[in-house]
Structure formats: structure tokens, C-alpha cells
């Protein structure tokens, strides 16, 4: 049986492992952290939710993966609140998130005041009032006592989620006190605190008689640990070998590949390699101005400005996915400032930079690329999943010939 190595276990790597297993390949996943998938914070998009364009649906395999992951649910007309004060659509989401479009007309959504950084119920209500009114809903900030210990003012969201999971009765009682201190509410909006391994949303909602759910929030929220828990469960149930390690070297050996970590020294060998190590945001790709660490006047080497986070020989990189990044006319590298910030129809170069694989996910002999690591692609979890499935299709054909 051919053996496919997958580097990275975010949405792309996990989907690739799932699909490769389904296609009858032997799979080993080597990874370090979930990367950008943790930034999706439970909202699952195929095309960026804020960019104009036709709606898209997942492929059959993608849909099957989504369901098997058991973590996101598919629904129509989802509306999720963000800390930035938007009620945004999504293709699917973590069931812990509060779906505002499922609220009955005229319902009141209560936002409890919790003294934590990044949580300001009053400002959030002010920001959400207008979009909520457009759905026929009202919002109201209310006092609550949701922190049991003094350190809960500053611990991470995921740590608080773990504590809530261990103490759901106390949380339920506190939320009940909050809800009964005013007019009856149809919904209760919280930060990402409704459990890590399992969701507290169903039991709290049933106990309180109103929909309890979370807001979409990124960076340091609970999305990373939750995704990891769901992923490990899925890969474990399929019997897919998964190893954690920061890979130091990727080396070709005959027709296959070797992944190596230095300390402790470990090696993984396979017939093919699928790169799902993420883009610049995840560290899978590094933007490196050549004159960083330069000598007196000139760069020590003439390298293009992009490289893989782990050196892999013979990779061609691209800033925009439209053309390969070669040495260019400047020894000081690419002028990334010409597209410094995303525009409605054009993502910024820092979002699109990655491996040059223009027409197919193949970027070398028995080497494939998926997710944000591929130039000009992704930015959404759905894209990452679809590109992983496409890459595995190619890999399966090449490896089983």
C-alpha cells in the first residue's frame, strides 16, 4: 500500500488525511499546531463571507468530511455575531455559535457583562443593535456574575471554556440569575466559553429555555483547541497515524520523501508528500526580505522574498498565484507594499503568498500542496478542505499507478 505523508493538520491536512484514507492510501500526518484554522473560530466559509460573488457548495467528499468531523453543522442562512459588530453569513458553523437567523421575530438577545479583555457587552450591544434590528431582534447588555475565581479576569478564553465545561451547573445558575433579572430573553450571547471537548450549548439552552450561543472571535480564542479535539477524535477513529513535531528537514529520497526532526531525532518516510502547512499567517510560508540580516550594503544571497517555513528543495513560490516569484529585477526582493491591504476584490499579497502550483495542486514529483500553503488560494476553511480533496485525488492516482 502506498504511503502518503501529510505535513500539517489544520483543515487542509485533516481533510487530506480523511480523504486519502477513504481512497485507500496509508497515511501519516505530522504536524505542530492548527494554524489558521484556529482563526476561523467556528465559522465555516467556502468563499470569503465578505466578498461579492456567487454562493458555492462543498463537493460531496467535502460535505462528508464536514459531517464526519462532527463539529460543524451545515445550515442555511446562518447569521453569526462578530466582536466587530456584524451579523455575518456562514456556510456552516460550530454548533456552539449563536445562530441569529433562527431566533423568533422580536426576540431579545441578552449579552452579559463579563469583565474580561476583548469582552465589552455594552459596546458590543451598541454595535449589534442595527444589524439585529434588521432581523427583527433586540439586544441588551445585562449584569452577570460569570467569573468564579479572580484569575478568570485574565486567563485565556479556552482555559475559561475548560473550567465552564467542568462546572456547567454553576454556569447555568449564574446565567439563570442574569436572565431572570429583566425581561424574558430569546437568546443569550457569550464569548467562546461553552466548553472545549463538548458543547455546553444544548444543555444550557434546554435548562434556561432560551438559545445560548457564542460570538465569532479570533486570536487566542477556543477555536484552536476545539478543532484539535475534533480532529484527533476523527483521525483516531479512522486509525490514521498522527505525530506531533516541528519538522526541521524535508528531504527527497528516491521517488519518495523523508520528514525529519532534529531533537529528538525522528524520521518519517513515505512515497508521496502533501504540504498542508499553511501560509504566512500560520508560518508555513515566510516572507523574508533578502536584506534582512544583510551585510554592509548588499544581501548575502540573492534569494526571492518568499520561502517555505521548512526548507524544501526546488519549490517555486508566488506572491499572488498569477505568476511565479523569481529573482526579479531587485536584489532587495519583492515590493510587497504595492498590495499591502486586502481590497473588496483583491486579497493582500500577504494572504495569497505561497507555493506556485497554478493549474493543479501538484508542485513536484510525488509532491502536492493544499490549503493556504498554495499561492493565490484559500483564505477560507472551505477552500482549504476542497483543495486538500483535489490534491489527494491527484496523489491517489499517482501513487496507485
Amino acid at each position, binding site marked *: 500500500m502506498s504511503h502518503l505523508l501529510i505535513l500539517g493538520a489544520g483543515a487542509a491536512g485533516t481533510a487530506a488525511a480523511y480523504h486519502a484514507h477513504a481512497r485507500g492510501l496509508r497515511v501519516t500526518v505530522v504536524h505542530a499546531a492548527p494554524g489558521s484554522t484556529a482563526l476561523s473560530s467556528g465559522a465555516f466559509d467556502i468563499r470569503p*463571507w465578505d466578498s461579492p460573488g456567487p454562493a458555492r457548495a462543498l463537493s460531496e467528499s467535502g460535505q462528508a468530511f464536514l459531517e464526519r468531523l462532527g463539529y460543524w453543522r451545515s445550515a442555511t442562512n446562518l447569521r453569526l455575531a462578530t466582536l466587530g459588530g456584524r451579523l455575518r453569513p456562514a456556510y456552516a458553523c460550530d454548533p456552539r455559535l449563536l445562530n441569529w437567523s433562527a431566533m423568533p421575530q422580536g426576540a431579545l438577545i441578552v449579552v452579559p457583562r463579563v469583565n474580561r479583555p476583548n469582552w465589552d457587552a455594552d459596546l458590543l450591544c451598541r454595535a449589534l443593535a442595527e444589524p439585529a434590528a434588521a432581523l427583527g431582534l433586540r439586544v441588551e447588555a445585562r449584569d452577570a456574575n460569570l467569573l468564579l475565581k479572580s484569575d478568570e479576569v485574565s486567563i485565556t478564553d479556552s482555559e475559561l471554556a475548560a473550567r465552564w465545561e467542568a462546572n456547567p451547573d454553576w454556569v447555568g445558575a449564574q446565567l439563570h440569575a442574569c436572565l431572570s433579572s429583566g425581561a424574558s430573553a430569546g437568546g443569550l450571547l457569550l464569548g467562546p466559553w461553552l466548553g472545549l471537548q463538548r458543547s455546553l450549548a444544548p444543555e444550557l439552552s434546554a435548562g434556561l429555555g432560551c438559545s445560548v450561543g457564542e460570538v465569532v472571535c479570533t*486570536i487566542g480564542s477556543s477555536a484552536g483547541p476545539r478543532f484539535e479535539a475534533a480532529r484527533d477524535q476523527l483521525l483516531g477513529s479512522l486509525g490514521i497515524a498522527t505525530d506531533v513535531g516541528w519538522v526541521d528537514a524535508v528531504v527527497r529520497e528516491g521517488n519518495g520523501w523523508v520528514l525529519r526532526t532534529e531533537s529528538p531525532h525522528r524520521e518519517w518516510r513515505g512515497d508521496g508528500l502533501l504540504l498542508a502547512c499553511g501560509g504566512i499567517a500560520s508560518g508555513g510560508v515566510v*516572507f523574508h526580505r533578502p536584506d534582512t540580516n544583510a551585510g554592509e550594503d548588499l544581501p548575502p544571497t540573492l534569494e526571492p522574498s518568499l520561502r517555505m517555513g521548512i526548507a524544501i528543495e526546488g519549490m517555486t513560490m508566488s506572491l499572488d498565484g498569477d505568476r511565479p516569484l523569481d529573482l526579479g529585477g531587485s536584489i532587495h526582493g519583492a515590493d510587497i507594499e504595492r498590495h499591502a491591504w486586502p481590497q473588496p476584490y483583491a486579497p493582500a499579497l500577504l494572504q495569497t503568498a505561497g507555493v506556485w502550483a497554478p493549474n493543479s495542486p501538484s508542485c513536484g514529483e510525488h509532491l502536492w500542496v493544499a490549503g493556504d500553503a498554495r499561492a493565490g488560494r484559500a483564505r477560507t476553511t472551505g477552500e482549504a478542505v476542497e483543495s486538500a480533496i483535489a490534491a489527494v485525488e491527484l496523489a491517489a492516482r499517482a501513487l496507485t499507478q
Partner: protein
Amino acid sequence: MRHEWYKRFMPGTPRSPFSPQRGSQDVDVVVIGGGVNGVGVARDATLRGLKVALFERNDLAFGASGNSSGMIHGGVRYLSSDPEVTEASCRDSGHIQQIAPHLLFRIPFLMPLENTPRQKALFPLVDAFFTAYDDYQPLKRGKPHTRLTPEELRALEPGISGDLIGGISFDEWGIDGARLCVANAIDAKERGATIRVGTTVDRIERDTHSGQVAAVRYTDRRTGERGRLTTSVVVNATGAWSPLTTSMSGLPPERSRVRPGKGIHLVYDRRLSNYAIAGKTIDGRAIFIEPWQNMSVVGTTDDDYYGDLDNVRATSEEVRYLEQGIARVFPAVRSARLIGTWAGVRPTLYAFGPNEDALSRDHRVVDHANHGAPGMYSMIGGKLASYRLFSEEMVDVLSGVFKLGTRCQSHQLKLPGAEADVNESALRESLGIDAMAVRRLTYRHGARSLPIADAMQSDPRGKRIVCPCEPVTEAEIRHSVRHELAQDLHGVARRTRLGLGPCGGMRCAIRAGQIVGEELGWSPKQTIQETGSFLEKLAQTRAVGLGPAQAHQDALLMAHVQSQLGHTKEPPA
């Protein structure tokens, strides 16, 4: 002698007597420009009893004043060419220490000299030069220079590199130029002046027969509200915008000509050295890296600028030019994390011929009575360090015109915040907030930290740290909008440094935008647009110098913004 030719074009004394009646107009003086010279004039004129209105097109300290090297230096660069500039700068540096001690911080300088025949020959001259500078140091409580061996240099600053014959140390003072502008503006306002930020003067009306200044017409750039204010005098203190402003009165723009010189600075994420270190660029220009507040700053370039003054940006070429020069003497700058750039345009006195660095940093008051516009004055040239003196000279002219007979007090009366010393540890204890947050608060506000602390006591929400990089509390953000004329997130950032740290605004911009939006009554949609445009402009100042760490951080920031705000502007049709 040196400036004689100049006076033919910009005479200093009016031909015909101009003596306006006080009280017959809405105000006595309209000052245009909210840079350091404009607010300095507004404050001094108000102190001397004149009724003043100040109009600023963008924001206080928007131009050169907020993008300078952040030094009230003694002008050692000008010692051989313009010793009077050096003396004036040193004397006024001393005055500014008297009126705003809380805003100043010492920046000791090291100037290493390379082991080349030329530098060897120069060393005694440099030593003698700084001996001459020592004469001026007492004016600004500065320490005399020291001659150092290469070993001593490296002991003081181990990051210094190169084959050196030694060097010297000298003493300068740093300041936050934007805070200085705000303090002057607030003082003028509290003493009765009208300060209008974000309001542009579209026309300066003059009497058809006498040519005398009669009124200004203005537009609030946010609301579109228009107005007219009658006045006897207009002071054009618009720096690099000066010719544009002059043309609003119907005079040709060259009547207040400047030679606009763009200067950029690089900002690093921490203090990379304890001393400022002088270096040279590839073309032999003097540059430096200085520890400045909680960062390091490299400056500066000086290039003729012909672009849009409302939208000045550093380019990656300028970034590399400065970095290359500093890396020769301080190589660590190559691997340090560049978190932003500043860009501004100096309003240097006009001269055709000399290269930018050789231009005089002196200043001059132009009386446009000589051009048929009595009551119209332009302030040309100048430096941050001598703003108070320049303002005094300007108001002396007004004092003569209005026959005031009051003396200048701007060097004796304290600026807001300098009224008393603040007991930082007591403040920290009573507030129970982070020590660093208290230190930064008292640096920016001096004794005016106390009303902000009171606001925190009465509403504990105010104690919340919104920008953890700087750090900045919610109460300070609200204070900058309510009492310091901040009109948007950029205005808050200029006053508090919110969002200017390594995270690029990722951890604070959305919440700060909601706070400012609440203060100013923005709609949710406008709040999102304002936040987006703030983040985009900051990203542009970083993109020209991105290294691996900041590129990674910026990609994270974009993912965060995409998740929370989505696109913040309408797609093109």
C-alpha cells in the same frame, strides 16, 4: 549679511502702517495650521489677551510636528552654518523644560568615528566642535561632551560595530511632538481660544480697496458645515502647506514659498540601544538611531517633495537607505523588527541651489502687507525645538500691530500637565492598574492624569486596557476625544500611541473604534469603515519595511479583520 538677499523678497517690515480696531471683528487673529507653530502662536496670542481662532485642516500635529525625530535638540547640526539657530534651539529647549518637564526625556548620544585617515584628521575638530557646543548645553540643562576610546564606546553600547578610532558623547532631549502640540492647543483653548480641528480654510477674504484681511471662510471636512469668521489678522502657520494657504487670500503662492523636504523615520519594536548612535548614510549624510519612548527610531531622510501633503508616505527605497546607513555602525538593526514608519514634510526656507541638508533651519515671519495684503502673515521655516521662540516673534509683531503692551509669558507659564508633579506609585495603588500603564499615562498627561484617574474611579470600565502594546486605557481614549480634540482613531493614536505597537492594531482597533464611535456618535457602519481605514493606513506604513516577524503578524491581523469586520469599504461598482 547671509540673509540679505532673502529680505529683498520677503521683507520683514510693512511699508504702510496697519492698525486694526480690536473688537470690531469676530476674532482678532485667525491662525491657520495646527502644527507646533500654529498652536504656539494661538497660545501666546491668547496669553497676551488676543481673541484667537485656530483652524486645522487635518489634525493637530498631522504634518511635520507629529512626524519629527521627536527631539528638542540643540541644533548641533547647524552650529557651523547657523550658530544663531543652535543658540536659539538650546535656549528654547531650556524654556520647554520649564513649561512641560513631564514631556521631556534625556537622550544621550554617541558619535563613533571610523578608523580612516579622514576621520582621524577630523577627530580633534569634532572634539573642538563639541567643545563649542558645550557652551550652549547649560541653556538646556545638558551635560558637556566626552571624548571616548573605542573600548569605552563598546562598553557603553556593545552593539556598535566597525573599526573605530573612538568617538564622543553628547546630550539631547527627546519629546513627543504630538503631545507638545496638544498641550499648547489645550492651553490656548482653556484660556479662551477657539480651536477647530478637521476644518479647512477655503478662502481668506480681503477688502477690495485696502487689500486688508477681512474674514476667513471655512468648511468642516467631516460634516461639510461651512462658516465665515471676520478677523483683522490671519497667521499662516501651515508649514509645507504654506503656499497653498497664501493662495487662498488671492496672493500668488510664491509669496510664502518654502522648500518642502520630506523626512521619514523607521520605528522598531523596542529600545534597541540605551544611547542614540549617530551614523552616516551611503552619501555621507548624518543619521541616527535613538531610543525614543518605548521604541527605537531611525532618522532621517531629507528630499525635495512635490506630492500630496495630506498623504505623505515612506517608500521602501527610503527605508533601505536609512537601514543600510545605520547597519554600518549598529548592525543589529538589520534583524530588528520594524513596526512602522513616519513621514512628514519640513517647511524649510526657500532657496534654489543648495542641497537639502545645507538649507537653513532658521525661521522667518513674512508680512504680506508688502504684497498688498495688510493683516496677513506667514510663518516660514523653523524647527520643533524653537517653536516657542518663533511663536513669540510672530506674536511680538501682532502685539505691535494691536498695540497690546503685554509681554510674552509663554516661556514662564506651564503647559497643561506641568502644573504639579504626580505621585505615580500612589496613583498606581489607588487605581490598581498596571504600573506600565500608569507610567505611560503620566508621561503623556502629567498632572492631567488625575482627571483621567478620577474618571476611572467613577466608572471602572475606564481602567480597562484597550491597547495592550502601549498600553492605553479606555478612560484615556475617551479623554482624548472629549478634551483633546481627537476626531477619529488616527487622532487618538496621535495623542496616545494606541495601535502603533507591534500588533499593528490587531488587539485594540475594533474595540477602540467602538469607543470612539460611541463618543462621536458614529453609526455602526461608519465605525467599521473608520476602523478599517485606520488599520489600512497603518498597514501601509509597515508594508515598506516588512521583515519575517511583522509579515506574519500582518497576515494574522488581516485574518482577524476579515473574520470580525469583513471588508470595510464598498466594493467598486
